[in-house]
């Protein structure tokens, strides 16, 4: 309880809206570049590293709910739980000190991606018949053609796309936090995740 109160400082509360806006802006940038990625959880991962797993969870869930409220992506709310889990896992990994070694951090990204695929497959299989209206639909078609069920095909698509997406996201977060001055990072409750020195 005490740890939670220390994580949700004013700086954290200010950071969360910024992080959500980052999620949305970067996500749309990637769509504009026509890359086969989403990169719509960079802000969530940033918060998770700097303010702990619970703050990451809150950011992820809120991000998707707000995405729906703005009318930009009406179905984002259905995947709020997935976004929350991504934030939670990123925060836990960072708390175990995985952020300080690049290869461990990238491994954390891949693991998070696998879990994200596992959780989101039933949602998109049930809601959309597995089709997201994106470039990755051909993957679903491919798996269906090999005789997989809707559920298996959707999971197949996720397991190809999500770990790669989270790997790149985690890498970008790592690069960003390395580029920020320590004086700035010092403001956040979990600065030791980045700098390595416990308070």
């Amino acid at each position, binding site marked *: 309880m005490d740890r939670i109160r220390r994580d*949700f400082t*004013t*700086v954290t*509360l*200010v*950071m*969360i*809206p*910024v992080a*959500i*806006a*980052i999620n*949305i*802006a*970067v996500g*749309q*940038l*990637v769509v*504009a*570049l*026509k*890359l*086969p990625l989403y*990169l719509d959880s*960079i802000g969530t991962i*940033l918060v998770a590293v700097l303010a702990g797993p619970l703050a990451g969870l809150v950011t992820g869930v*809120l991000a998707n709910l*707000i995405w*729906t*409220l*703005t*009318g*930009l992506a*009406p*179905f984002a*709310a*259905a995947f709020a739980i997935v976004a929350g889990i991504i934030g939670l896992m990123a925060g836990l990994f960072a708390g175990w000190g995985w952020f300080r070694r690049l290869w461990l951090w990238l491994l954390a990204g891949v693991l998070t991606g696998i879990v994200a695929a596992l959780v989101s497959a039933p949602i998109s299989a049930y*809601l*959309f*018949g*597995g*089709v*997201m*209206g994106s470039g990755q*639909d051909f993957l*679903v*078609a491919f798996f*269906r*053609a090999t*005789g997989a069920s*809707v559920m298996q095909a959707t999971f197949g698509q996720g397991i190809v796309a999500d770990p790669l997406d989270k790997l*790149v996201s985690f890498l*970008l977060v790592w*690069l*960003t936090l390395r*580029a*920020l001055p320590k004086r*700035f990072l010092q*403001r956040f409750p979990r600065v030791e995740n980045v700098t390595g020195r416990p308070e």
Partner: protein
Amino acid sequence: MLLALAFAVPWWACALTLFLLVFPLAAVAQVLGPLARTLWKIVLPFAIPILLIQGFFWGEGQVLFTLGPLSFYRAGLIFAAASIARIAMLGGCFLLLSMTTRVDMLMRALVERGLPSQALYLVVTTLQLVPRFQAQAHRIQDAQRTRGLETEGTLWRRAQALVPLIGPLLLASLMDVEERALALEARGFSRRGPRSSLVTLHDSAGQRWLRRFLWTLAVALILFRLFAWVTR
């Protein structure tokens, strides 16, 4: 406010019948035209691939017609139609919500029901930040293109454009955080106790009764589905 709670219901209900409810409600709220147009734009990119993928790759059952080496399956068509109906219904509800409900009102109502006031800040600020960030992303894109950054071409070339585009956006927005935190602290953001609001809510008796009715209906539907699922 009313609509927000109303949409707890249709999720479990039959997709099409409630879809017929959304349009009359939208007409009453005078957003039918924009709602239908946006919904059409959203559903179409889902509908076509769903039809093609599920129709052609179902792999078993009755064949409706054959196109070269591909056969179109009846079961696939039914599955696709059900998915599309569900998407349209869900999309319609969400759109109706976002088109008819003022976010500040919704959040005010939630705070009155016991949500911490910091949550109010989170949501309202985010909604103000998003358009600003989108504008900034555009500015960065233009600026980097002026300097000769290629944002089109092969996959590898487009991937290379990622860091020069995202980097400035992330760094600039993060540096902003500290300043905002100081400004909020100076205005008593973390103090305890109730606050007064500029927004006042009107909640009529009719709205309260309808809300209770919808809650009961939602719970009943969930129980009904659970029961049907268990005894199947």
